[in-house]
């Protein structure tokens, strides 16, 4: 049987952190010591779960309306597009986010940071990208928080993102940061990305045009997933 497979997704290892990174103590006993084995993508990796139908309510994209009252903190809009390197949108893909509240505390039993929980904030959001790859969340700006990685360690404010794309090879879990954060210099997770230009791609941009006057500031952040190793004409529908 001969199969017409879609083209493989291009290697993008240069964008990513190494799996072992001295500055991040938790990697020590968890990173594989054997070299990763190169696997040429097969039908298994070129397909992937297309989730979302029935899994997302419109209200899931607004983290400020999930309880009886409004959460405390600075209300913000976080939006952008999920695209491939050539700008092609990744439409209809599930985007999941989670974050600390405005005081820097997660709604999680293992978070022992002595900052207040907010009864009106869980910190969970979901949406599907539209036909143009766009996503949009309304939330509150997460606070920075201390952790035990090294003396006086603090995480810069961030929002966790999980994106499926349209193939197993495109799966990405990452974190979005805010521009100008003074904590970048001492954060090993942010700095685990070796290429400074790649690091900057984790930082959202303040977006005055998308602010809602009298209501919320806005930040824009595009998520670029691996793209197929192919010329555009190879990718026309029906090709």
């Amino acid at each position: 049987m001969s199969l017409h497979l879609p083209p493989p997704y291009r290697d993008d290892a240069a964008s990513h952190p190494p799996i072992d990174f001295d500055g991040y103590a938790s990697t020590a006993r968890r990173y594989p010591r054997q070299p990763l084995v190169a696997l040429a993508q097969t039908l298994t990796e070129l397909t992937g779960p297309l989730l979302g139908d029935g899994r997302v309510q419109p209200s899931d994209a607004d983290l400020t309306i999930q309880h009886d009252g409004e959460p405390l903190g600075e209300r913000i809009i976080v939006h952008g597009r999920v695209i491939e390197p050539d700008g092609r949108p990744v439409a209809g893909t599930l985007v999941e986010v989670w974050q600390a509240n405005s005081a820097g505390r997660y709604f999680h039993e293992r978070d022992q940071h002595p900052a207040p929980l907010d009864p009106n904030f869980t910190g969970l959001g979901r949406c599907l990208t539209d036909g143009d790859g766009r996503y949009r969340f309304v939330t509150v700006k997460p606070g920075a928080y201390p952790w035990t990685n090294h003396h006086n360690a603090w995480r810069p404010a961030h929002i966790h993102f999980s994106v499926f794309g349209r193939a197993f090879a495109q799966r990405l879990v990452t974190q979005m940061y805010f521009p100008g954060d003074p904590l970048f210099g001492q954060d090993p997770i942010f700095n685990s990305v070796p290429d400074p230009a790649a690091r900057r791609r984790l930082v959202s941009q303040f977006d005055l045009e998308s602010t809602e006057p009298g209501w919320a500031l806005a930040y824009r952040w595009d998520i670029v997933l691996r793209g197929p190793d192919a010329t555009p004409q190879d990718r026309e529908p029906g090709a």
Partner: protein
Amino acid sequence: MSRETTPSQTVGPFFTIGLLWEDGPFVVPDGTEGAVRIGGRVLDGAGDPVPDALVETWQADPDGRYDHPDDPRGRPDGFRGFARCTTADDGRWQIVTRKPGPVPAADGGTQAPHLAVSLFARGLLNRLVTRIYFGDEVAANAADPVLGLLDQDRRDTLVAGPVEGGYEIDLRLQGARETAFFRI
């Protein structure tokens, strides 16, 4: 204009806020005819359980077809093919699914039945990718082109052993019998 890809960052310790689904571990509902349980432990380099890992699986249906428009043989009906399970305090995870069929390989050959696995955890800056094969598919496994990339010891780290009602496999992040992980 070409744009470079967004870097990965760790899933961190608190991902259950965002990534926990009630039906996550169930590719098929519990009690479905032909359903099997596939599970095991995630262990770190000291052999200790990893209580804050996320295991995601992607697989073909029992006929070896993927629920995806790029499967050139057409989409099966109603088989999600995807599961997501967090590890418990003892490092254990378990999914409920149907065993996949053999899947075509690029060269006209066949891949043995398998699950693709993404493993996320605090301490992992990028996901780890591996596969799970089935211990009762001896002939198919011997001919599988991906298992064929590995020597016998490492090959064995990907093969789940049959147990009552399903299959069992430990994912070892580091050290003795370290699971083989792939770069895709």
